[in-house]
């Protein structure tokens, strides 16, 4: 079941369906003694936005990498839509419907914005070898790409090289490229970093739109207002372990979280 | 129990080893042979080794060395000087060979010569031409033609016999090509010819058209291109292709059936200096040419002939004086008119290099044919006996 972009899913917009889309059990990833992720359990419901926060080095990005398949977990299991994907390589997970962006915005910098989206669309289009040798700029494909480009608001600069785009558009382009793979789970790794307030608000709107498409989202973010406002649920990681979980309010008031992570800033936020 | 069995087995192995070594040592006279069987020079190494084996078989069929079998111990030096030194040391120290023969190129031969000189073991190179090989000392000889002689013969033929006035040089940039070219140039200049073009090219080069176009523009009477057949085949066929119409002259490095195979009809008319006369009716030459073809299914070349000759000469000496190094060396320098070899008879050794009549061959109808032979002492001796060099 793949969601077509631009097609509004009726009924459940904004609502979380009680269907587990992603289940992590006891996931571990160690780097020569450093326990980056040390036994994390996590579940994600369909249509949910899960905020993943924690201090630098807490293991957030590593956890995201194990979910997207760039890293293989040392232990534990990952279930995605009732399928064990623990040992699948990244590209197969992408085909199943897990898309991601990166902490440091990385588009295909020598391709145009449109081509970046086209690369993402290739994920679903090219099942067989023969399609590889077909024209990459067919009309119907370009139309679909345009829908995504419109959604992320990049229509004006779609023919620019990605390397020439400002950071705000780059962040959107990354999301667009990820959306092009028609995901059911989107992993966003600090999408708001480096953005000013206005860009950040636009991005928040975009994330809301994406959620309305029925796509579940895991969001790593340091900008507290951004993550607290968007997330349905927050998980706090510290030294590779989950130390708190709950609604944004619950987590913000959790004394342990305030102590290890939020610090004085957190106290301010809570008060 | 198990430990006891182990000990017994180890003991048996050791005993067997000792016995076999003793038994072999009593039966055979060993000569060592280093030659490149791997790397870029492997083809020459193969010719050389197969010919040496042919000679060993011949010697053993004709009574061996004073009743003992002649044994050839050969190693692959990959045409690397450091390998050659190490393997020569191994031949001398482990295998206790009476004589070391090098079937390799100039630089490895030079390295081996130095080791043999230090160990006072007689050494001979076969087809390596560089002058410095025999300069290692009195234990080192050369069976093939020294570059100064061969280059000089080429120079005489070009400038005197063919009467070339304008000469172009295209030289392979290694010991072989450069030392030949030097001797050739000296002789040709002395005989009044003019060098109108000179260029060095690296071993392994395949594209000569730009040089050849420049040579064509220089309009020479003759192109002398010392090198090996692989490169030479390209030079010759490309020379014909660009329309260079002058005499083409090469050296013993061309002397291989492969040269003609690769250059095809372009090889016709090319002169080479060599010492293997395929039209000779000397019984030993015929024996070598026929048996080599029988053994390897390939036509023999000059490299093989000199390997054959080295073993023949060494076994002749061993038969006469035994295996003591000093006796061998003393006898070696007195050799005169040695006929049991595939190349022209060895007249004598001068400065420890073989002196023999020199041949010019020409390629006709896709075959090497006898063309001219030099007997004149002032040409074929390293230092002509009359004195004036």
């Amino acid at each position, binding site marked *: 079941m793949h969601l077509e972009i631009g097609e509004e899913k009726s009924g459940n917009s904004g609502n979380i369906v009680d269907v587990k889309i992603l289940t992590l059990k006891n996931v571990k990833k160690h780097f020569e003694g450093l326990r980056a992720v040390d036994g994390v359990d996590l579940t994600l419901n369909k249509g949910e936005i899960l905020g993943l926060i924690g201090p630098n080095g807490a293991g957030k990005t590593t956890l995201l990498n194990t979910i997207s398949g760039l890293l293989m977990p040392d232990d534990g299991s990952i279930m995605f839509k009732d399928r064990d994907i623990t040992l699948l390589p990244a590209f197969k997970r992408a085909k199943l419907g897990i898309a991601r962006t990166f902490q440091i915005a990385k588009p295909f910098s020598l391709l145009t914005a449109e081509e970046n989206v086209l690369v*993402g669309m290739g994920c679903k289009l090219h099942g067989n070898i023969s399609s590889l040798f077909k024209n990459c700029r067919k009309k119907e494909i370009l139309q679909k790409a345009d829908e995504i480009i419109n959604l992320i608001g990049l229509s004006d600069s779609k023919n620019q090289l990605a390397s020439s785009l400002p950071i705000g558009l780059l962040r959107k382009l990354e999301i667009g490229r990820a959306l092009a793979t028609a995901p059911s789970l989107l992993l966003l790794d600090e999408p708001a970093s480096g953005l000013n307030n206005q860009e950040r608000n636009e991005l928040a709107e975009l994330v809301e739109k994406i959620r309305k498409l029925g796509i579940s989202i895991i969001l790593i973010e340091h900008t507290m207002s951004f993550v607290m406002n968007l997330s349905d649920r927050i998980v706090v990681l510290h030294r590779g372990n989950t130390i708190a979980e709950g609604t944004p309010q619950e987590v913000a008031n959790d004394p342990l979280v305030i102590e290890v992570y939020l610090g004085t800033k957190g106290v301010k936020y809570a008060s | 129990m198990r430990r006891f069995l182990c000990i017994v087995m180890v003991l048996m192995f050791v005993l067997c080893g000792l016995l076999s070594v003793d038994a072999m040592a009593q039966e055979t006279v060993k000569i060592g042979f280093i030659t490149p069987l791997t790397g870029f020079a492997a083809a020459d190494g193969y010719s050389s080794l197969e010919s040496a084996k042919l000679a060993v078989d011949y010697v053993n069929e004709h009574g061996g060395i004073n009743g003992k079998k002649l044994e050839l111990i050969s190693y692959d030096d990959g045409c690397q000087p450091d390998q050659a030194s190490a393997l020569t040391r191994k031949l001398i120290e482990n295998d206790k060979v009476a004589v070391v023969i090098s079937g390799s190129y100039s630089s490895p031969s030079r390295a081996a010569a130095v080791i043999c000189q230090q160990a006072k073991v007689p050494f001979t190179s076969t087809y390596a031409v560089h002058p410095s090989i025999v300069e290692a000392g009195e234990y080192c000889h050369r069976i093939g033609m020294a570059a100064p002689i061969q280059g000089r013969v080429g120079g005489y033929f070009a400038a005197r016999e063919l009467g070339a006035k304008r000469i172009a040089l295209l030289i392979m940039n290694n010991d072989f090509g450069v030392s030949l070219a030097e001797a050739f140039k000296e002789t040709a200049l002395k005989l009044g010819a003019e060098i109108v073009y000179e260029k060095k090219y690296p071993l392994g*080069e395949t*594209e000569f058209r*730009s040089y050849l176009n420049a040579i064509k523009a220089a309009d020479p009477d003759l192109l002398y291109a010392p090198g090996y057949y692989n490169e030479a085949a390209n030079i010759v066929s490309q020379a014909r292709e660009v329309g260079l119409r002058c005499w083409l002259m090469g050296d013993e490095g061309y002397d291989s059936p492969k040269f003609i195979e*690769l250059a095809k009809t372009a090889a016709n008319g090319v002169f080479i200096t060599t010492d293997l006369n395929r039209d000779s009716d000397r019984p030993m030459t015929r024996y070598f040419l026929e048996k080599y073809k029988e053994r390897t299914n390939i036509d023999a070349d000059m490299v093989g002939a000199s390997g054959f000759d080295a073993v023949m000469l060494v076994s002749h000496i061993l038969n006469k004086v035994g295996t003591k190094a000093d006796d061998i060396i003393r006898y070696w320098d007195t050799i005169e008119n040695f006929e049991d070899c595939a190349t022209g008879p060895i007249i004598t050794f001068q400065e420890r290099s073989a002196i023999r009549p020199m041949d010019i061959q020409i390629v006709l109808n896709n075959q090497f044919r006898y063309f001219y032979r030099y007997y004149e002492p002032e040409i074929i001796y390293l230092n002509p006996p009359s004195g004036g060099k």
Partner: protein
Amino acid sequence: MLQVLLDAIVLGCSYALMAVGLNMVYGLLRIIHVAHAALYTLGAYVGLYCLLNLSQSLWISLFVGALFSAIVGVLMYRIIYSPALTAPRYVPLIAGAGVFIASQELFRLLAGPYPYSFDAHFQFLSIMTPNLRVTETQMLMITFMVVAFLCLFILINKTNLGLMWRACTQDMELAASSGININLIIAINFMIGSALAGSAGILMALYRNSVFPTMGAMVSYKAFVVIVLGGFGSIPGAAIAGIILAIAESFLGMVPIFNLPREAIAFLVMILVLMFKPKGLFGR
């Protein structure tokens, strides 16, 4: 003059065909594929075998030789490079050099140390005038190169595969996360590069009329000079630089006072490029 230029272009075609494969691999994996030259020799030997035993047709031997090289090229990646990719970059370099040396000895063991004549007869265009002469083989080489590069250009810029390939050369991780089967792309990359190397080997064997175990040695470092000159990873760079290098070699080789061998010219060019334009003429 025109003649020298033409001969140089033909020679440049062989450099370019070799360098493109090297650059395709470098662009994708950032490794120097030293064993690439082994596929050049392999193509020549397989082509020769075909010619002697299967069919008299040059076209069939060209096809079979290229196909064989392509398959072996992919195997080479799977067996040699793939496990070494996570290691420091000198590891695949040394592994490749080892494979290249071993391959020379393997060819020698299988086919013998002597050069073979590559005696194919075929019909093709040729130009023969008093001032200009382009032999059938030269014409074939130029045509092959032009067609090969046109195909490559279309493949890379117009097709889905090309888009995926370009994406992979820029960021392998990102490409994998976008659902691109990077193993497949790498395999196809090796296949195309190796097939080009194999056909270059056959064409050169035909041109030089010789096939021998160490025939790849000279082209291997010439191709390296070409990719330095053209810019690492740049395919048009490799094509143009191959021809530029051959032209430079040929014309400098004609100057009588400039008494340097051809290979010295190549390395002189490389040193100059590294000094003044380290990214190469077309590097990015």
